[in-house]
């Protein structure tokens, strides 16, 4: 039903045909492009997944990838649709979604993110995670435009809604909804088959993630294509299952916490690994997620 179309990699002419990747694509790996219909592509590459829509009045990208992979992403979409980049969204501030922005600015695109997403990278700040000061990113890596609550593009015959959800993966998340093409790019609020990151250092939370997933489930229909931040293309049913799994994990951690266990002890006990044995460890693993949840619930309880 879906056509996997050949794509050129950043480094050459290797062509990939076949099922979605089991492992994240690296710098030299070829991109994999899936035609979702309605003139929207899912591009999997170095940096995760990006949804690209053609509108007749320019291309709209849900994220920018990394500096090494952004140019090939732009070229592939331009070659497929014969349109120039018009809008590039940042679903959140993490580098794998945003460090490719300079190539998009050079190509003439307008970059858009949530106000917090830009604030996070435009100001010098002290990082509790690194225990050090972090300098602002270079101007060519900052979105030129930010929004607060909701935002809509009416480009050609494609309506595209940008929706912000509070404190989910970060405090500055945007979901990109290609309404006419029936495609939702979730950013990292939803990842498919990998252990999630819930970046509490940047305002993310488990409870916010669950609430955002509920909203995404409400936006989607049975035929909606869900492009996760990372991992293979998904359906509404996959998001529902993921939401149920996160909630189950939440209860598992809360139960141990009720027994008086500390976040460190909970990480040690690793109660979540058995719940999702198929999930791939990535930036995080099952013990990290358990500890992260335990810390959040302890903070909330204080």
């Amino acid at each position: 039903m879906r056509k996997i179309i050949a794509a050129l990699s950043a480094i050459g002419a290797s062509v990939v045909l076949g099922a979605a990747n089991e492992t994240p694509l690296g710098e030299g790996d070829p991109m994999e492009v899936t035609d979702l219909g309605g003139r929207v592509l899912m591009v999997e590459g170095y940096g995760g997944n990006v949804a690209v829509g053609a509108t007749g009045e320019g291309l709209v990208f849900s994220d920018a990838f990394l500096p090494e992979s952004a140019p090939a992403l732009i070229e592939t979409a331009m070659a497929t649709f014969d349109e120039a980049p018009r809008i590039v969204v940042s679903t959140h501030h993490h580098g794998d979604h945003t460090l490719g922005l300079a190539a998009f600015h050079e190509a003439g695109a307008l970059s858009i993110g949530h106000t917090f997403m830009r604030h996070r990278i435009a100001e010098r700040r002290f990082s509790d995670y690194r225990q050090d000061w972090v300098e602002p990113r270079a101007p060519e890596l900052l979105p030129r435009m930010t929004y607060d609550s909701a935002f809509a593009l009416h480009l050609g015959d494609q309506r595209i809604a940008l929706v912000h959800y509070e404190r989910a993966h970060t405090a500055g998340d945007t979901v990109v909804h290609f309404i006419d093409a029936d495609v939702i790019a979730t950013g990292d609020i939803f990842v498919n088959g990998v252990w999630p990151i819930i970046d509490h250092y940047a305002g993310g939370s488990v409870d916010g993630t669950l609430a955002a997933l509920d909203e995404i489930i409400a936006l989607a229909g049975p035929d909606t294509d869900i492009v996760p931040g990372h991992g293979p293309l998904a359906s509404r049913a996959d998001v529902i299952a993921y939401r149920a799994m996160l909630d189950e994990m939440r209860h598992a951690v809360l139960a141990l916490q009720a027994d008086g266990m500390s976040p460190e002890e909970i990480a040690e006990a690793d109660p979540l690994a058995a719940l999702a044995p198929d999930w791939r460890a990535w930036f995080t693993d099952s013990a990290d997620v358990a500890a992260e949840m335990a810390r959040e619930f302890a903070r909330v309880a204080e």
Partner: protein
Amino acid sequence: MLRLVSSIAAAALFAASAHAQTRAFDADIVVTDLGSGVFMLVGRGGNIGLSVGEDGAFMVDDQFAPLTPRIEAAVAEVAGSGDVRFILNTHYHGDHMGGNEEWADRGATIFAHENARQRLTEPQVSSLTGEEEPAADPALWPIITFQSGVNFYMNGENVRVMHVPNAHTDGDSIVYFEGAGVLHMGDVFWNGLFPYIDVNAGGTIDGYIRALDYALTLINEDARIIPGHGPLAERADVIAALDMLTETRALIAEHVRAGDSLEDTLAAQPLADYESFGGGFINTRRFIELVYTDLAARLVLSE
């Protein structure tokens, strides 16, 4: 001079329909340099704000379609090129967005509050004449919409676009060029003139008052304010408008609460102290009618 501009603009002020813009408008574009790459352009229709610099031109409102070549020449005069990258429509009225199609054809990306676009897509009933006006040509519709606000970071400026609810219409934006200290208020502020409250499009006098209150929190004594209509203003002019609106609201509300008819209210001449505001398109009588209509609908509901 001011009166002339207002009354000619009024001919198409309330028509978002394309045919209203085909009249042979012609006007010189008068450009005022406000510093830091920000300019005010006065032609015919709503006053234009313009920011120019290395990231391209950003324009607030675009008046009427036939004026586009002249506006383009004025932009080129100060920017070296007549290209405009972004246009923000402060609201849906034809004297503020009549040039949208021309500018979109020239490559501009046009923004507005979501209610402003929504009103362009549907027939509207004039708050003055009660006549139905057809939906605007789709070529005039802004292509990017927002709810609460957007910020642009360009030309070394932080350009803050903020929605102010239910003031002139239900889709108004004001635009603050933070670095330059210039605030473009669209039709939420008419300098020295009674403003038009488009009550059929969600406008209310309470929203006007809240919007001006809010504007005063943004600006200091040195700020320059571009009104939708009327000459360039300063903070004191906004305060004068706020005082007038607050007093008007109290005076007319008294009549509404007392159950006075519109005729009785007009006969009482409640705004005699503010006659000087009546020299524009909205004369004293019209203003009283609009405020009375607005308050009669809302006070009865809420009390």
